[in-house]
């Protein structure tokens, strides 16, 4: 028997239960309903249904080109910024469709933040200005509010102690790992509810990666985190739930421990054991 549930339930949620579309999990934060996504004529997501729990870390794994990044870019309406990209289906955030008519994508992006694969601090801005950018460029002028937000976000990103004396230094002068934590701080500063991370550690060394994983564990109590990763050990280490995508479809989704220990689908098992991908 597997012993990986802290809840009173003895059995992990069955695959059917989790994969069943249109069913509301308790504490569901994000739910997609028959989500399709295209780049031009190339369909990258096919009728995808996934439901993400609030205040949990969900890892998305799968071989290159399976639609992992596209999936999370659909969740904060960044997908549509690519020319000729489009979507259909619904994405429910707290029960309301973010693709509904009249919804301003900008308000969605303020609630659903994003961290990218390569650290991308604003190169001409100082550390302070980078973190403050989201608030400031949305009209926040109050210095004490900004100061507090910058310090809090940098503390959450485990970066405050390293940069508190150099807040005026250029963000681009930090090391790669520090830059990525700066980007996380920048995303946290606007106080989103959901944080999407697109392979945030793929450009970083193991020490920097460990720091980011520690950071993810420490913020998940207040945020819903979704992380795309190519690194299966990382998915196993940081996530509560794991989704395995293949060719734009959700193949298997469940609690991380159970998915890694006894995958139901043969495809999942073959991917986890490195037989393809």
């Amino acid at each position, binding site marked *: 028997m597997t012993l990986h549930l802290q809840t009173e339930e003895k059995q992990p949620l069955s695959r059917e239960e989790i994969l069943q579309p249109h069913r509301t999990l308790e504490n569901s934060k994000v739910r997609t309903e028959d989500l399709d996504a295209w780049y031009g004529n190339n369909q990258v997501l096919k009728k995808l249904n996934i439901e993400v729990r609030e205040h949990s870390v969900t890892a998305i794994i799968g071989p290159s080109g399976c639609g992992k990044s596209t999936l999370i870019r659909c969740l*904060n309406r*960044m997908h549509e*910024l690519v*020319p000729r990209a489009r979507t259909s289906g619904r994405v429910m955030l707290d029960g309301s469709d973010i693709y509904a008519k009249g919804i301003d994508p*900008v*308000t*969605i*992006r*303020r*609630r659903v*933040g*994003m961290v*990218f694969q*390569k650290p*991308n*601090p*604003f*190169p*001409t*801005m100082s550390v302070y200005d980078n973190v403050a*950018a*989201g608030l400031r*460029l*949305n009209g926040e002028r109050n210095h004490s509010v900004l100061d507090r937000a910058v310090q809090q976000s940098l503390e959450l990103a485990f970066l405050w102690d390293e940069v508190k004396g150099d807040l005026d230094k*250029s963000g*681009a*002068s930090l090391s*790669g790992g520090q830059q990525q934590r700066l*980007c996380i701080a*920048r*995303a946290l500063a*606007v106080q989103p509810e959901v944080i999407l991370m697109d392979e945030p550690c793929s450009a970083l060394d193991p020490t920097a990666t460990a720091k980011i994983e520690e950071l993810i564990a420490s913020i998940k109590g207040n945020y819903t985190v979704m992380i795309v990763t190519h690194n299966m050990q990382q998915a196993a280490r940081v996530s509560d739930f794991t989704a395995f995508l293949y060719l734009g479809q959700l193949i298997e989704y469940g609690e991380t421990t159970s998915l890694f220990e006894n995958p139901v689908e043969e495809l999942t098992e073959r991917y986890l054991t490195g037989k393809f991908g």
Partner: protein
Amino acid sequence: MRRFKNKLALWIGALCAALAMIPLVSILYDVVKNGASSLNVDFLTSAPGVIGQAGGGIGPAIQGTLLLVGLTIIMGVPLGVLSGIYLSEFGDNPVGRVIRFLNDVLAEFPSVVIGVVIFTLIVLTFKSFSVIAGALALSIIMLPIITRSTEESLKLVPNSIRDASMALGIRRWRTTLSVVLTTAKSGVVTGILLAIARVAGETAPLVFTILGSQYFFSGLNSPMDALPIRIYRLALLPYPYAQAQGWGAALALTLMVLVVNIGVRLATRGRLYTTRSRA
């Protein structure tokens, strides 16, 4: 052998760079050698004297150039920068391609043609050579240079920077102005400086628009002097004093362009050079 080739390529490159410097240095040398003796406060501030007699200065010409370039910047820079922003950020469509093409055509127009066009449209219509007509001609010359350099500088900003900003819930126009333009500022400023230097030295279109004058500023709708015209006129005179004054005026123009360049560089330094990331 490979190291030799490497060395050879390096030396050829250095040699070409040195060759390219020769005209620059020799021009500067001649201008300074021949012009320095004429420069003094009186020469820089007084009006031209009677033709054929030594004395007088280039005060009106300096005033005119400052005024012209100032007006040109007011008209040309905002329009050029905004067009460049449009072409880079929103110009990936047929309209943008047409504008880009027309802009390139405009950039290749001989400046004298632009002078003649303004002469026909403005000078003949209002029956007077005027500062406004001159500034208009110079703006038209400046516009495509700034548009193109702004567009190219903005295109160098990686898309990941735009993504980062959009993902923070910053609106598109804010992203463009406060993030993309700020990131590309160094290139945009360089383009503007080049354009200013270029129009400050234009002569042909000015002959058709502001004509030249012996007097100080007397209204935006009247003729005016400018340094390139003054240099041209002085150089045509057969008197040695006039040629010396011409060199002096040339040196004054060179120094003005230099001062503007250095001034802007200093004013925007620090914020400009942080663009280079350590990677």
